[in-house]
């Protein structure tokens, strides 16, 4: 069984859940964290259970999890009393970080201490990581308060060792190198141009699964059948 952890309005997640029906894909949404049945153990044994699309599932039956949420936000929890929403959101995020980290099946991206979506880097730290990985920066001087920058219009989607985008192979390889350097399986890198020397602008940890080839690459990655 594959799980796609996402907001219920995430069209990319719904697209994948439908496409992966044969793999038993299910959506897991924030409301599932407010349903009886979750069991997660630390420092001891016991069967692990989760809730997905309102139903109890055995964690041992899960074969992979795709994370498409950066975190649980207050506004995702209309069923929780307004006074408690911020607290409950913090509790759910903290729980998901522990739960996703403990899973033995493939999880894309693996959570980081501060984020369920993977490397929890600010824009500044993505720029620093890109510089270390040898990518050329459009604006090596970063100012705060921020200075308005032009929008970068070229995207490269990285899924494991593979990349997707209308760019030169050298630029695609740079995006894959950046992902590798921070331990991310998935990311979308933004560039000012498609040539090998195009400058790097930033990163988004969400990928567009409707882009040609991406959904199949995700599935291969989740099934552990590609590098």
């Amino acid at each position: 069984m594959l799980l796609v952890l996402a907001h219920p309005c995430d069209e990319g997640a719904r697209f994948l859940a439908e496409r992966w029906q044969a793999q038993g894909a299910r959506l897991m949404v924030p409301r599932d964290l407010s349903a009886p049945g979750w069991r997660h153990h630390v420092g001891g044994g016991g069967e692990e259970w989760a809730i997905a699309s309102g139903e109890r599932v055995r964690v041992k039956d899960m074969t992979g999890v795709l994370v498409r949420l950066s975190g649980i936000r207050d506004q995702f929890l209309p069923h929780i009393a307004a006074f408690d929403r911020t607290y409950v959101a913090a509790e759910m995020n903290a729980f998901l970080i522990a739960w996703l980290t403990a899973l033995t099946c493939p999880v894309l991206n693996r959570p980081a201490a501060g984020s369920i979506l993977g490397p929890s880097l600010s824009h500044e730290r993505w720029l620093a990581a890109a510089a270390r990985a040898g990518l050329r920066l459009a604006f090596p001087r970063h100012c705060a308060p921020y200075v308005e920058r032009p929008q970068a219009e070229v995207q490269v989607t990285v899924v494991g060792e593979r990349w997707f985008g209308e760019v030169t192979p050298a630029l695609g390889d740079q995006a894959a190198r950046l992902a590798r350097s921070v331990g991310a399986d998935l990311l979308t890198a933004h560039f000012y141009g498609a040539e090998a020397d195009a400058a790097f602008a930033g990163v988004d940890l969400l990928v567009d699964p409707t882009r040609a080839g991406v959904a199949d690459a995700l599935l291969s990655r989740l099934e552990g059948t590609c590098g």
Partner: protein
Amino acid sequence: MILLWGPPGDPPLNAVSAALARRRAEFMLVDQREVLEQRVELDIGTPSGAMWIGERRIALEDVNALYMRVYDARTLRRVIDSGPAASVHVQQVETALWAWADETRARVVNRPAAMASNGSKPYQAMLIARTGFLVPETLVTTDPEAAAEFWAHHGRVIYKSVSGVRSMVSRLGPEHRARLADIAWCPTQFQAYVPGIDHRVHVVGHDVFAVEIASSADDYRYAHAQGTTCELRATVLPPDICDRAREVARALDLPVCGLDLRRTPDGQWYCFEANPSPAFTYYEQHTRQPLADAIAALLHGYQ
């Protein structure tokens, strides 16, 4: 130069500041209350950059060590009164400074990325367990039946938040039975109660300072509020436990941390948590352990 970052009046920040002054170390306080006058320039990929406080410039490449005790500056009265643009300013400036704190080659106590492990207690417990300490048997659940089984199995059970918010430890009692159904709304953390004597252990670089705590409260930090007492006295840990404490600090990348340990009657040691920004002055006042001096030495020694 050593940079201290936080609001003046914060007891640990004041204590480290005084200790640095006693050592005649060169240091500067970045007052977090002045965040609206602050701006930052980072030269990405180099150690260079600058922080401006009004017209005053701090060259970030000259900073050898940083001690952080920062709070959410968006809650400052001045920021709230200055409107939404001020809140955006705070978020951008502090995000840049946090990024610098994570990236700089300076000694940082502690790097923000490393401090994040404390935001999820069960996540941090997993990391701590890998260092050899025992961690309490824990169930995080939305299942009232599972919670009741866990309670019945262990007899004595405590519950506490999963995140760092509202982080108070309480013991489950008969008055909670009727409310167990409420856990369906949010994953709730239950732990088997571990009997024994609490120890607060501060690791500062290679130094280990241990305090034994005598209290009957479920959470000794709130002993007075719970109508019980709390006595603290300095103690010495067995060498292997000192080593294990250092290993937790190393594994979590926290040069300074406060570990909550408990020694059971049969001599086993449990670790409950590693606090990445310990309010050590409370322990210093009760035991006279030179914690601020040790932190100052750690920062100063890096110059």
